[in-house]
């Protein structure tokens, strides 16, 4: 039986996110090509929409400043939390390659089939998201590394459903992948920090006396308990189901893993660095640290369709207010949701 499933057909090229324009600013060449296919299908808000041709795009960073944990001297919310609410997005690259984020998807040929050109010297690009150990590699146990390598081949020539990157199925991005896919919203309330991603959301409970859910319950975005220390939001993540993977290079954590996160904010409120320790004695030989830089997007920015998928609010005042487009993926997904339903009807 021919089980060959092309990821071009299934989700990648036909992934439609409702009113969201799917134009990655930090994607690799393959993403750019897919973007052009999608532009015609997705719909834009007409009201005072910034023209696509003139969209200002932030350049991808090749390096980023370390932010020290310490005092917060910026504005605070009435409940005392540092006020960091707003639209955020990572500054480096998407989920194409975890250890070489700007190096392109491993093994990806050009669209015309020719092999990809040499991406050049490694140190000319952004560092690995693995900041410890120093070699920038996830310290996999041998069996797990074999699975990762198998995924990297299967990603281009899937013969098994587990070769499909879960984003193509509109599965939640999970931890940590949600932080380097599209931009997202951080909202703060007494007792909670809420992350709203295009796929999924995370509710960080700031009441650490509240126990985690039972280990029987495993979640795409885990179960989170956190507290603030100065400029740093410290979050303990349990109940991870490991299913989202870390991206197209196949790295993963299992349902036995836990994550201790630090979101370290600069005092001017424009950046934060995510520094998190991933522990899983069934997958890794030792815990390792993931570092992801992010910057804030504001009403002064132009929407770019990837880091910021928004439109200007309609109102009687003069102030420009950005509103995010509806975040619903699966139902609109050409490959799975509505597309699959249409196929069934034929």
């Amino acid at each position, binding site marked *: 039986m021919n089980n060959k499933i092309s990821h071009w057909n299934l989700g990648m090229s036909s992934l439609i996110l409702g009113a969201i324009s799917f134009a990655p600013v930090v994607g690799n060449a393959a993403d750019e090509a897919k973007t052009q296919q999608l532009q015609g299908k997705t719909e834009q808000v007409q009201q005072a929409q910034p023209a696509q041709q003139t969209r200002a795009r932030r350049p991808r960073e090749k390096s980023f400043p370390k932010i020290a944990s310490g005092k917060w001297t910026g504005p605070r919310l009435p409940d005392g939390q540092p006020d960091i609410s707003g639209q955020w997005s990572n500054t480096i690259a998407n989920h194409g390659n975890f250890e070489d984020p700007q190096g392109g998807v491993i093994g990806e040929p050009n669209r015309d089939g020719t092999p990809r050109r040499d991406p050049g010297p490694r140190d000319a690009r952004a560092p690995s998201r693995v900041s410890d150990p120093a070699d920038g590699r996830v310290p996999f146990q041998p*069996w797990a590394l074999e699975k990762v390598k198998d995924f990297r081949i299967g990603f281009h020539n899937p013969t098994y459903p587990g070769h499909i990157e879960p984003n193509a199925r509109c599965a939640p991005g999970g931890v940590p992948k949600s932080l380097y896919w599209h931009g997202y919203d951080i*909202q703060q309330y007494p007792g*909670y920090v809420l992350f709203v991603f295009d796929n999924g959301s995370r509710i960080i409970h700031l009441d650490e006396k509240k126990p985690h859910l039972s280990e029987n319950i495993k979640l795409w975005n885990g179960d989170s308990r956190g507290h603030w220390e100065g400029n740093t939001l410290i979050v303990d993540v349990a109940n991870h189901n490991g299913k989202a993977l870390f991206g197209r290079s196949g790295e993963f954590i299992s349902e036995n893993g836990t994550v201790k996160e630090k979101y370290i904010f600069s005092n001017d409120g424009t950046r934060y660095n995510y520094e998190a320790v991933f522990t899983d004695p069934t997958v890794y030989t030792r815990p390792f640290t993931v570092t992801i830089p992010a910057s804030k997007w504001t009403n002064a920015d132009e929407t770019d369709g990837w880091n910021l998928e928004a439109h200007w609010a309609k109102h009687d005042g003069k102030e420009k207010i950005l509103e995010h487009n509806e975040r619903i993926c699966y139902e609109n997904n050409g490959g799975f949701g509505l597309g699959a339903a249409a196929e069934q009807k034929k």
Partner: protein
Amino acid sequence: MNKKFNKLPSRFSKFAASLMLVTSVFATPILSTSAMADEKIPRLTNGKPDFSGIWQTTSAADYDLEPHSNRKDAPPGAGIVEGNTIPYLPKALEQKKKNFENRATDDPSLKGWTLGVPRGVYYPEPIQIFQRPRDLTVVHQFGHSVRTIHTNNTQHPVIDDASDLWLGDSRGKWEGDTLVVDVTQFNDKTWLDRAGNFHSDALHVVERWKLLDANTIEYKATLEDAKVYSRPWNISAILHRHREKNFQLIEDYRYTLDFEQYYPPKPDKK
């Protein structure tokens, strides 16, 4: 103005004073019963009622908005439709009957798809409302859909039909302590309940959210849809605050159940 009072005989003024005192002692509870209830309603720092928290209805509305006896797939319910019957246009009523017959396969909630508005409000799973002055964010445990109700004096955006939304576009304003939310720009892909009650992309919903006390929300909605109903019609339901210790939403994604068994990779069995 004070001259008038100075001219009153002192006996009369003393009597008037004591009468006023007596009246005020008895009048305070009567006049302020609603005020005292208001004081118990949580409020944001800007004085607006605060709907923050985790809520859920105990009504059987999601099984069937209209009154119905029990079925193999539903408990009985007295219905939450004012006047009991949804005023379908004749062709729409035929469609509703077809939906009902095929509900075991055609109900979009079976696939775990977004419930839409208003079904997400009375679906029998918790919703968590996060509220700040500019908006309310409603996170639904089912499907983990996130709906934003803008309360910052903004209006519905101008978009074309290709951008019809699963949850519609919600703009809220305050009428006293009632949050009135206008929802438009729907697509036609959601149902109103499991019984096949449905709408078109012309649906327009006006909701009225009101805290009856700190732990109870009265939810009312008027639905109109010129392609489906002959006139607007109303529903009303009660939401209760979840007060169990440590209660929290737990992700409920159904569509991932079709493929999640393939992730993450596992060691080969030897």
